[in-house]
């Protein structure tokens, strides 16, 4: 049992939970994740370690209310417990002194990007971050990204905050201006990561992406999270989640993520019927 010590609503349908998990907090590294099973009959869902504090022994998870499991998780209150939290899973992001690192993040991807940007900066890199959301109300972790970066650009799809446009527009400009870039880290929805990878490829800019395939165990035991990287099958949970964006078979990833769409809809409908919308604010 793992106690929730604090809970915040960061945006419409985005919740932050700080959970007492001293052993994981002592070991966490940027880019790693945990698998959470809220109660006895819950699914196991992967969530990134968005922050951690070895001293207080807590980890921070930030998640979007996507379907039944995340909606249910958003109903857990401070002082209540979560049945299972296992981690830290996955290979940590390779943090080195590259020079200039551009961190591009969209939507909930910022929960994953924040610790990576911070670690890159701590390793002595110049970190240029470009973050975005569809709307101002969905933008999370702006202040945290600000302090994790040497330079921050903010975009919204509808112009409600920062610059009107997409994160990739800003990246285009940086490349166009001839800024020296040694590494790009792109984390967000698949179309965004794919778009960024397509843009950086012709410039030979190494691009790291973080894949979110469907998982169960997270220990390399089931192969459900398999993705094709440069023609080879890899397991996202143990070989990733970071991969070279230029090598990913994106079509396959998109297809595999849809494997259970009917079940997901059904579960969500049942959840709504039971809880009358429950956590709410998800549309």
């Amino acid at each position, binding site marked *: 049992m793992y106690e929730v010590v604090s809970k915040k609503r960061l945006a419409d349908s985005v919740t932050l939970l700080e959970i007492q998990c001293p052993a994981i907090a002592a070991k966490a590294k940027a880019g790693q994740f945990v698998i959470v099973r809220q109660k006895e009959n819950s699914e196991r869902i992967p969530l990134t370690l968005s922050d951690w504090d070895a001293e207080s022994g807590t980890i921070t998870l930030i998640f979007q209310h996507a379907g039944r499991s995340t909606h249910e998780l958003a109903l857990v209150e401070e002082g209540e417990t979560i049945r299972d939290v296992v981690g830290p899973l996955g290979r940590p992001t390779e943090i080195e002194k590259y020079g200039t690192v551009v961190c591009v993040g969209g939507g909930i991807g910022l929960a994953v990007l924040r610790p990576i940007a911070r670690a890159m900066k701590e390793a002595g890199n110049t970190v240029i971050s470009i973050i975005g959301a569809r709307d101002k109300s969905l933008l999370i972790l702006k202040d945290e990204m600000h302090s994790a970066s040497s330079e921050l650009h903010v975009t919204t799809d509808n112009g409600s905050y920062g610059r009107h446009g997409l994160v990739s527009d800003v990246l285009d400009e940086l490349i166009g201006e001839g800024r020296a870039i040694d590494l790009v880290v792109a984390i967000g929805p698949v179309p965004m990561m794919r778009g960024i990878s397509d843009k950086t490829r012709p410039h030979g800019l190494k691009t790291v992406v973080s894949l979110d395939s469907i998982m169960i165990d997270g*220990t390399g035991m089931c192969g459900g999270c398999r993705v094709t990287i440069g023609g080879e099958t890899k397991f996202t949970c143990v070989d990733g989640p970071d991969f070279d964006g230029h090598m990913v078979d994106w079509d396959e990833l998109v297809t595999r993520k849809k494997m259970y769409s009917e079940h997901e809809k059904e*579960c969500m409908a049942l959840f709504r019927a039971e809880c009358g919308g429950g956590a709410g604010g998800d549309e």
Partner: protein
Amino acid sequence: MSKEIRAREPMPRQSAEERRGNFDEVALGYSKEQAVREAQRCLQCKKKPCVSGCPVEIDIPEFIRLIAEEKFEEAAKEIKKTNALPAICGRVCPQEEQCEQVCVLAKRGQPIAIGRLERFVADWEATHSANAGLCDVTTSPPPKAKLGRVAVVGSGPAGLTAAGELSCLGHEVTVFEALHDPGGVLAYGIPEFRLPRTILHREIEYVKSLGVKIETNAIIGKLYTLQELLSNGYDAIFIGTGAGLPVFMNIPGENLNGIYSANEFLTRVNLMKAYKYPEYPTPVRVGRKVAVVGAGNVAMDAARCSLRLGADEVSIVYRRSRNEMPAREEEIENAEEEGVKFHLLTAPIRFIGDDQGFVNAMECIRMELGEPDDSGRRRPVPMAGSEFIMEVDTVVVAIGQSPNPVVRQSEPGLATTKWGGIIVDEETGATSIPGVYAGGDAVTGAATVITAMGAGRRAAHAIDKYIREKHGASSAASPDGEECLLQR
């Protein structure tokens, strides 16, 4: 000599018609009368040939004699001297290749149904004995100072056995398990209808009652490394991480939706209880036509689960012939009775998907058997021009598993074979790192529950010796291992 001629007592089972519609246990177990009748067939051979067929060396004639005398509780205690998981072994041991194969009656008729009797006694104890199969904690002597601390990695049969044994030998034992429930393959792989989870939980509770602590959600190599365990007060480590890494065929289309590894399919169904979806929200997709590739126990389990999840047609696709099928005969028969079809001498060569990326067909090629290969079985050879298309909407790949890589990847000092098996001294289970032992599928590759338990037991005694020598205590103080599980 009517004793020898009498046939073995048949096992009552759910009818094939009934059972393919539920996940309840197929074999129903002997009644008291049946058990006693079967026990009376035993010749009580002086040389006990059957014992040599049991990797944990249960005194088989002795426990059978106790059954014949209707001393069931004593029979259970006799078994538990060397086997902490009798209700499990009685159900899933391949007895026909072990204890029952060497029973003298096997040559003259039908061997004693040792496994069924073992199961009977364990179940009887659980429902009739005052302490319901657990050691009586209240009357046991106060714990003595522990001799040493041991970390056990993995809670499958190897880990649980090593842990129980070490605890009885006087050590403080913590089992670290990566998943949320203990049991290894017993929890995530073998289906409910062969091993009800209440029985698994009961036997795990028994191991805990011996003083073993189990920490779930603890993935060694990530949460703690072996070196960290050793420098944080553990005198020794036993690695029983199993062979959980699924093997794929690496043929075109294998990552299409609807194609599962057996591990994923069975984990969804058993560990995550997808058969109770949507009460348990983890889904599994079982279409109308399911093909299971492979013919071992794992394949039979996946095929029989598919039937129970509502598939119209379930086929086993296997590249060799019936004689080479590695599954237990009993499981093959069960599968056949339930309606599983067998496409033998057939191998998939590619998968074909629809426009949504879901598998809808599988191209296969027919095989014929050629010269024997390394495994001594005749090698299947593709027959040119025999390709054909099989319509399928779910595929389960059950062609094998190799050892779990997480521990070995985090510990470069741990010597392993090319295929990832941990290299050990066969007698003791000692690895290349002093104080670190290993056993079970992590060493041998996918094998059996009882061989994993045997390895766990042997390693436990070697670890006990290692710790005693390390602490300079005399090993004469060690309680006799044979009596160990009963000692408390």
